[in-house]
């Protein structure tokens, strides 16, 4: 027998008290309120909350738990996602006149807008409907509030809807009752890192609530000056990509009665980000700030009707509102025509309404069915991206079902389908089938095939970027309007498709101390949307424009290997290795197809080691390798292969009524590297260099 160490002192104190307690209880021996023991408890671990065991998931799933999130030393979700096989993170650093972005890519095919992944927070899709991608820097969500992150590797439309194309990132936050009391976290370091988080969790009767206020600030990356001829200075200069975010998010969980639970979440964040267009050859455009507001409301009602049936109805609303005013570089026409600049409004506003109903049914011990319906409306407006089209609305309706049939103790069949309808798609079906064979309780093999689609984003279908200017000479109009049409809409654009085949293995070794998750896969992608240059008569600037078309087809072949080893309670190794080969369908490798082929590294690997030295001291070391790759918007300047390492040392101080941690985090310990744009022809080269910060957190009642 052991008393848990932190409370030994309490035991000793208690021994003295026991005597008086027993003396007291001798005359009043009975325990009060015993009826409470038999109260009807609410259903806490409902069907919708329970995780599927990894040995029975129809797809390869990486689950990053709280311990890994904390040990990674990350300040942002993308940094944590580097622990997932095949995932690569890039910093797009002020190219193309837009704000610097953190980009998460799985198997490439990605520019600064990662369009082929679904990202959900508690079942709420957060990818942006106009341009695609996720504003990772700006989402009003705190790492401290995240319970775990599940990443489904491979398409899973039948469960998560369209855009669950190459992977699905499912972020699950903690129940409001799990964080009672006050929590304060301070972080300060180089790169002007200054973060503050305050959270309070409480409850009132059947209502649990949590409110988190936070501010996150840094000066972005540093950059080396471009000396020309692919030479860069040794000195780092400010890259003018400072970012300041203030956010509030809250969650309430109200247990209406034993069978019904209502969750209400909301959040608001405001981000100011510095933008300096590195690409501008003249370098004359001033550094400017953009402001982006993110807000959401989320309501979810869960009913556990009985042991066989539970229902979920949820509604959410997302808002992204970006303000970004700029002016173009000086346009020199010549021939006596006055030079001029254009006023540019890069602002955009996107909204999403989503209503969903899901029924979980356990018909028999061997048959489980999840089915549901959803309706979604995306609304976008942007002067820059949509020109004079005003507000674009798109409605999507979905019917989905997934069945898990336990044929016998050894075999499990999982099949599902999504029926989806919208204006662009018409009606499409995305089916999935997986057979899991369990050799025994420790080892299982999975064979699966699935089809998924990606519906074009609003900008891919309706994108219309055009500028015009009435030319003058000496200030007098000459009767000519200069028109530059950069992008035209394509009403005939179709969805992208993927057919994925895989063989997966899940095994437990050394008792349960070593878990291995591996898969071989072959994916066939068609109709990939790519921007094509075409001539256009109405453009009298350069006579050509761009259009999004379904041009490319590729194939992925690869293998992924992931392990989680816990040799003892105080030591853990979590790592992966991933190999990917991309081929084009085209016999003649066009330039565009080649860009797609090179858009992901062949090899990636990561390893996070966590060691608890004592009750007070712990440490973690993360190693990450990414092979050479070219992001689709800078294919000619691929990011070189790099290795990087992060270190975190932490001291925990446990008092009777508080828990505090002091941590030192050092990142990029193996030297500087660029993960997006290795050799820009023009403008500085931004790099990730040594980053260090001290983090102090305390929780108390």
């Amino acid at each position, binding site marked *: 027998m052991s008393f848990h160490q932190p409370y030994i002192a309490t035991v000793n104190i208690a021994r003295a008290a026991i005597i008086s307690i027993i003396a007291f209880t001798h005359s009043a021996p009975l325990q009060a309120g015993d009826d409470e023991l038999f109260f009807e408890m609410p*259903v806490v671990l409902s069907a919708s909350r329970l995780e599927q065991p990894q040995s029975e998931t129809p797809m390869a799933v990486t689950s990053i738990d709280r311990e890994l999130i904390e040990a990674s030393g990350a300040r942002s979700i993308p940094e944590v996602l580097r622990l997932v096989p095949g995932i690569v993170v890039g910093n797009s650093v002020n190219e193309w006149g837009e704000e610097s972005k953190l980009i998460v890519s799985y198997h490439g095919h990605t520019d600064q807008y990662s369009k082929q992944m679904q990202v959900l927070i508690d079942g709420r899709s957060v990818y942006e409907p106009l341009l695609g991608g996720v504003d990772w820097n700006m989402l009003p969500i705190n790492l401290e509030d995240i319970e775990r992150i599940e990443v489904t590797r491979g398409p899973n439309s039948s469960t998560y809807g369209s855009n669950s194309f190459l992977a699905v990132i499912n972020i699950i936050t903690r129940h409001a009752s799990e964080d009672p009391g006050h929590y304060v976290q301070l972080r300060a370091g180089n790169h002007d890192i200054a973060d503050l988080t305050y959270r309070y969790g409480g409850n009132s009767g059947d209502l649990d609530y949590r409110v988190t206020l936070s501010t996150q600030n840094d000066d972005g990356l540093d950059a080396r000056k471009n000396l020309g001829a692919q030479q860069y200075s040794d000195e780092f200069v400010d890259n003018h990509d400072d970012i300041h975010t203030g956010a509030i998010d809250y969650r309430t969980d109200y247990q209406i009665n034993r069978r019904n639970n209502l969750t209400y979440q909301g959040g608001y964040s405001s981000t100011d980000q510095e933008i300096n267009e590195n690409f501008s050859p003249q370098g004359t455009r001033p550094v400017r700030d953009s402001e982006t507001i993110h807000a959401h409301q989320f309501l979810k009602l869960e009913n556990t009707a009985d042991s066989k049936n539970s229902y979920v109805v949820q509604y959410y609303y997302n808002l992204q509102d970006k303000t970004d005013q700029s002016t173009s570089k000086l346009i020199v026409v010549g021939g006596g025509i006055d030079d001029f600049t254009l006023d540019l409004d890069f602002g955009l506003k996107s909204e999403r309404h989503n209503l969903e109903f899901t029924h979980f049914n356990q018909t028999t011990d061997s048959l489980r069915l999840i089915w549901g319906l959803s309706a979604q409306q995306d609304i976008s407006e942007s002067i820059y991206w949509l020109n004079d089209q005003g507000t674009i609305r798109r409605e999507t309706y979905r019917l989905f079902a997934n069945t898990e049939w336990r044929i016998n103790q050894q075999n499990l069949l999982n099949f599902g389908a999504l029926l989806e309808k919208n204006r662009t798609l018409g009606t499409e079906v995305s089916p999935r089938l997986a057979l899991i064979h369990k050799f025994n309780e420790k080892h299982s093999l999975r064979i699966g095939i699935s089809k998924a689609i990606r519906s074009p984003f609003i900008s891919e279908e309706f994108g219309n970027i055009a500028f015009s200017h009435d030319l003058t000479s000496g200030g007098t109009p000459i009767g000519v309007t200069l028109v530059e049409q950069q992008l035209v809409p394509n009403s005939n654009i179709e969805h992208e498709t993927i057919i994925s085949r895989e063989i997966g293995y899940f095994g437990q070794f050394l008792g349960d101390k070593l878990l291995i998750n591996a898969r071989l896969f072959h994916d066939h992608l068609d109709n990939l949307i790519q921007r094509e240059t075409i001539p256009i008569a109405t453009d009298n600037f350069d006579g050509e424009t761009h259009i999004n078309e379904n041009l490319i087809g590729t194939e992925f072949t690869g293998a992924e290997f992931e392990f989680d080893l816990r040799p003892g309670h105080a030591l853990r190794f979590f790592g992966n290795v991933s190999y990917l080969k991309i081929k084009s369908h085209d016999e003649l490798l066009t330039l565009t197809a080649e860009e797609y082929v090179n858009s992901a590294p062949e090899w990636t690997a990561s390893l996070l080691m966590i060691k608890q030295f004592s009750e007070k001291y712990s440490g973690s070391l993360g190693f990450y390798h990414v092979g050479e790759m070219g992001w689709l918007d800078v294919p000619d300047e691929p990011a070189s292969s790099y290795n990087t390492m992060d270190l975190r040392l932490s001291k925990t101080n446990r008092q009777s009524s508080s828990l505090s941690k002091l941590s030192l985090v050092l990142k990029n310990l193996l030297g500087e590297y660029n993960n997006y744009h290795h050799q820009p022809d023009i403008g500085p080269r931004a790099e990730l260099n040594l980053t260090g910060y001290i983090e102090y957190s305390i929780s108390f009642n």
Partner: protein
Amino acid sequence: MDRLSLTSTFKTASAALRGVCLLAFFSCTATTALAAQQVDIISAADSGYQQSLVENIRDSLHGSGINVRTFNTNSDKSFNNNEQLIISIGSDAASLLNQNNIVTSQLRILANVDADKIPAQKNTSYLSMTQPHCRQFALIRLLNDEWQTVSLLLPEADVALTHRLESCANRYQLTLQVILIDQYINIIDALNSALSESDVLLALPDNSVYNAGTIKSILLTTYRHKVPVIGFSESFVRAGALAAIHSSTKQLGKQTAELIKKHYKNQSIKQHIIYPDDFDVTINKDVAKSLGILTPDRKALIKNLKNKNNE
């Protein structure tokens, strides 16, 4: 006529009956016995659980010739009958007996009976609504033979209990990890720091630890650590515990009725502390599946548990 005046009338009638019996001995033997075979049950009228138990005791005594009178802890004080067996259900009813200095034979039915905390009182026996500790450890061992460390949350005031718990744990080759808590310790923090070394959390029935305010966070935290919980009620299992041994009010009612009959057969209840002799096991298969735990057949498990002496 209120219940108090009814009782007074009954006492007067009873005295008169004894007088009549002197005149007609044979015919009155049975009548006297009939008058003696009465049991008073005190319980909380606002507790559905206790009322269900009362009804099940009454049903199980049906046809036995033993009359059942019921009293409410909140309003009835008229059970002060020194000639009857008194059954108290719940701690409020037991406190009431203490306050009224009842000295007649008593059976006190409590949610949880701690041998260290009850006095050795003549004529008083205790029936626990929940299971003996060793039975719980037996369940843990039968559920999984690879589990080694059992954690439990224990109020610091109950630290003396650890020796008996340890003895039970050792019987099933299990190591005990006691997480002592007091009013200043956040249960969730305590669990977070201790669960990494646990294979399973045993929830002992104690409402200062497991109550409406804590049950959600305890279940969510243990689930996050992938540590299953062994609960103490069917409702606990529905909420998210992996399994529990529990006795229904029907099973407890039947056992209570048997004890009452035994008392009236002049076989006094010898045991000071009595545990449920009939019980059921509930397993949450969804939780088991999610945690990757293969559970044994429930009926075989119950049979196995009943074959063991676990008190």
